[in-house]
């Protein structure tokens, strides 16, 4: 099992900053979302997939996947992912059948491809995804439901095809997810000998400040407390207007 980071946690960060964050947090994989500012766009526009993979390897990090949220992004991601030796994770779109079709199109362009399963995906959709005969990726939506029950069902049906797991609500949000079954999920993965990736990602942009802090990108919380002068507030004097009685 390889724990990693989604570029969605710092969508404005370049590849080198993402690698520095991984080093600080002991993370060993990077899941790059198409459209984020990591700069891995191919030789015509930015860093090539091969160069990015090489730079990441030098930092002890695996570029584990490129994440596409739509058909237009599939076409951008496929050649870059192929050069990086990482699959394109195909998500978004109107239906699971459409994802399967798109994933086959990515594979036809010479890249690895995996079909993304959303949260508590229905068994019917899971069976449609399995018809792709490709790897599967699961987006675990921790705030959206009970993870433990879904994990048992999805892991049982998907078996060894499940290679990419993204936890929406990991990192600094973990302390808010008690009782949602993340511990059960991780136990099940360990007992199954899962050796794919587990990627930490935000569940919502609401937690942007918490993530910035957790990733070591900010010195404070933006409220001025870091540089506040404690001499302006004294707790030693008498409290006025409290318990004064009549």
């Amino acid at each position, binding site marked *: *099992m390889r*724990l990693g980071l989604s570029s969605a946690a710092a969508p404005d960060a370049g590849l080198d900053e993402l690698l520095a964050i991984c*080093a*600080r*947090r*002991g993370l060993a994989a990077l899941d790059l979302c198409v459209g984020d500012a990591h700069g891995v766009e191919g030789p015509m526009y930015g860093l090539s997939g091969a160069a990015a993979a090489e730079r990441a390897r030098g930092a002890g990090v695996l570029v584990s996947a490129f994440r596409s949220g739509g058909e237009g992004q599939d076409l951008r991601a496929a050649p870059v992912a192929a050069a990086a030796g990482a699959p394109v994770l195909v998500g978004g779109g109107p239906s699971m059948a459409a994802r399967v079709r798109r994933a086959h199109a990515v594979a036809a362009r010479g890249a690895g491809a995996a079909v993304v399963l959303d949260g508590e995906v229905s068994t019917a959709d899971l069976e449609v995804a399995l018809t792709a005969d490709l790897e599967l990726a699961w987006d675990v939506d921790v705030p959206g439901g009970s993870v433990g029950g879904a994990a048992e069902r999805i892991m049982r049906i998907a*078996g*060894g095809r499940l290679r990419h797991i993204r*936890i929406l609500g*990991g*990192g600094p949000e*973990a*302390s*808010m*997810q*008690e*009782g*949602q079954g*993340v*511990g*059960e999920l*991780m*136990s099940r*993965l*360990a*007992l*199954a*000998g*899962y*050796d*794919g990736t*587990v990627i*930490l990602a935000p569940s919502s942009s609401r937690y942007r400040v918490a993530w910035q802090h957790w990733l070591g990108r900010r010195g404070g919380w933006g409220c001025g407390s870091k540089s506040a002068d404690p001499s302006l507030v004294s707790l030693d004097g008498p409290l006025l207007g409290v318990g004064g009685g009549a």
Partner: protein
Amino acid sequence: MTNARILDVRVIPPREKHPAIFQTFGALEEGESFVLVNDHDPKPLRYQFDYEHTGQFGWEYLEEGPTVWRVEISRKGA
């Protein structure tokens, strides 16, 4: 999937960490092991193992910080 059993508890909410670890340990057969990954030295866990599973477990540090700690925890024979 391979037989590499790794339990990375850095992603697990604090209150669920120890139950997840003991659930994983409880499912081990004699002689089997798993690698616990954590972001600090899991010494308190070691004390809990000492108390609850005296003589039944092995504990070997594979990596000791400063960012990541890895400990191989195995189940010994009764």
